[in-house]
């Protein structure tokens, strides 16, 4: 059996080993400054950043954490860099989740990344005044519809069991009319699509999204129509937001692994096609 035919019959586990190396080795390498400069800030990422940047201090932002631990490598960096940007701009943040584990991810982001950050510490953030976690509410898109008329009715108590109406930050918040932007970080259903239909188009609140890469092509048409203010797609989108906001975090760190593993996949696709066309029509 000649070389190209052997290549076509290669054990898939050998390819797995190559891909594993392509991911693991770059994790040990500090990316050169030239690589960081090449991280792309796409138009939807830039427009989300610009929108937040131009909001007056004290504006209320809602963040819907609609994901769970399996997708945290992609989505948690989107949450962290966005939260840092909001708090640096002195915006008030209302967090919630239509996924049961979403508000837990919000707590992780606050406790492990935001409240320990030196720049944010100086702001002396107070729970209930500067930010609040309303917790999880079952009901998917129907919760969004309810929030359109009364947020406190949809989320009667917060993550810690305090009545929503008794939280200082929520006293002036009746419905979406009092929210300047809903930023939905989503890994599926319910997610950005539901927020666009039931909150953005129905009640007129501005919506932005942070999606897993799988979802990104599905939701990107809503950017062109203006139904989404901005959209972050996968790890590349998260790294783009980290770059533009200046808070380099895990997404930027992971991008070298992402780039090398993609190069490896492209290399194998080209190699496989070469082997196929060279051996086409030959008997094995």
């Amino acid at each position: 059996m000649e070389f190209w035919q052997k290549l076509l019959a290669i054990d898939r586990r050998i390819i797995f080993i190559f891909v594993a190396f392509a991911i693991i080795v770059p994790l040990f390498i500090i990316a050169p400054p030239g690589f960081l400069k090449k991280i792309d800030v796409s138009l939807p990422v830039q427009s989300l950043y610009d929108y937040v940047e131009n909001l007056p201090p004290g504006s209320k932002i809602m963040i819907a954490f609609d994901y769970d631990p399996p997708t945290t490598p992609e989505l948690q960096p989107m949450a962290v860099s966005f939260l840092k940007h909001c708090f640096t701009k002195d915006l008030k943040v209302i967090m919630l989740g239509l996924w049961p584990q979403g508000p837990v991810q919000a707590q992780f982001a606050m406790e492990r990344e935001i409240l320990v950050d030196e720049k944010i510490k100086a702001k002396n953030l107070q729970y209930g005044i500067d930010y609040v976690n309303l917790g999880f509410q079952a009901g998917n898109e129907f919760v969004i519809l309810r929030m359109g008329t009364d947020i406190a009715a949809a989320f009667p108590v917060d993550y810690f069991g305090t009545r929503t109406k008794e939280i200082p930050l929520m006293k002036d918040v009746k419905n979406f009319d009092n929210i300047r932007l809903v930023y939905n970080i989503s890994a599926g259903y319910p997610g950005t699509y539901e927020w666009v239909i039931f909150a953005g188009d129905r009640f007129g609140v501005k919506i932005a999204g942070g999606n897993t890469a799988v979802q990104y092509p599905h939701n990107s048409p809503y950017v062109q129509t203006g139904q989404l203010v901005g959209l972050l797609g996968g790890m590349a989108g998260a790294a783009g937001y980290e770059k533009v906001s200046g808070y380099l975090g895990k997404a930027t760190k992971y991008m070298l692994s992402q780039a090398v593993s993609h190069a490896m996949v492209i290399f194998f696709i080209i190699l496989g096609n070469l082997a196929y066309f060279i051996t086409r029509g030959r008997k094995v």
Partner: protein
Amino acid sequence: MGAFLTLGIISFLYKDNPWYKFCEALFVGISAGYWFCTVFWSQFVAKLWDNIYPTAGQPRQYVYLVGGILGLMMLLRLVPKIGWFSRWPLAFVVGGTAGAYLIGYALSNGMKQVKSTILPLWVSGNLNATVGNIILVVGTFCGLIYFFFSKEQKGTYGKVAKLGIFFLMITFGASFGYTVMARMSLLIGRMDFLFGTWLGLIK
């Protein structure tokens, strides 16, 4: 524990084995248990029980019993003789969801998307916008033609449909590329956990 389970799941890449089976069964079992508890506390207790038996001073809201009865009827599916009862709550769910989506879907995915494809094919002084608009309009038109099967796709009509296939293939290719990125991201996250959080080798 996290490392043990992660390695157990990854071991499937070599071949199916008892370690993987154990991790898989554990994951399915814990997920089912977690969802049962979540649904019980966030729906049965929070939405039904707490409204029928509220804390002192709060009025009882018997309207929530309607939901409770519909939920009970859904469970009757488990009793074959009276299983037909479950069709009522099912009809309620299907009807309610269809009603909620009807207007939203027509507006968000119909009107607004169609409106955004009605674009000028010549934007004076902006070549990028001109090319972009032409691609968008031609791509949308050709893609729609491909899905119109009432006329045989041959001649000029067939060529337009074939161009539509090219646009669809590019779209699927982009989706595939993003899917690869998503899967790689998950693996990167796990590797960072193993070599960073667990072994402490990555700073």
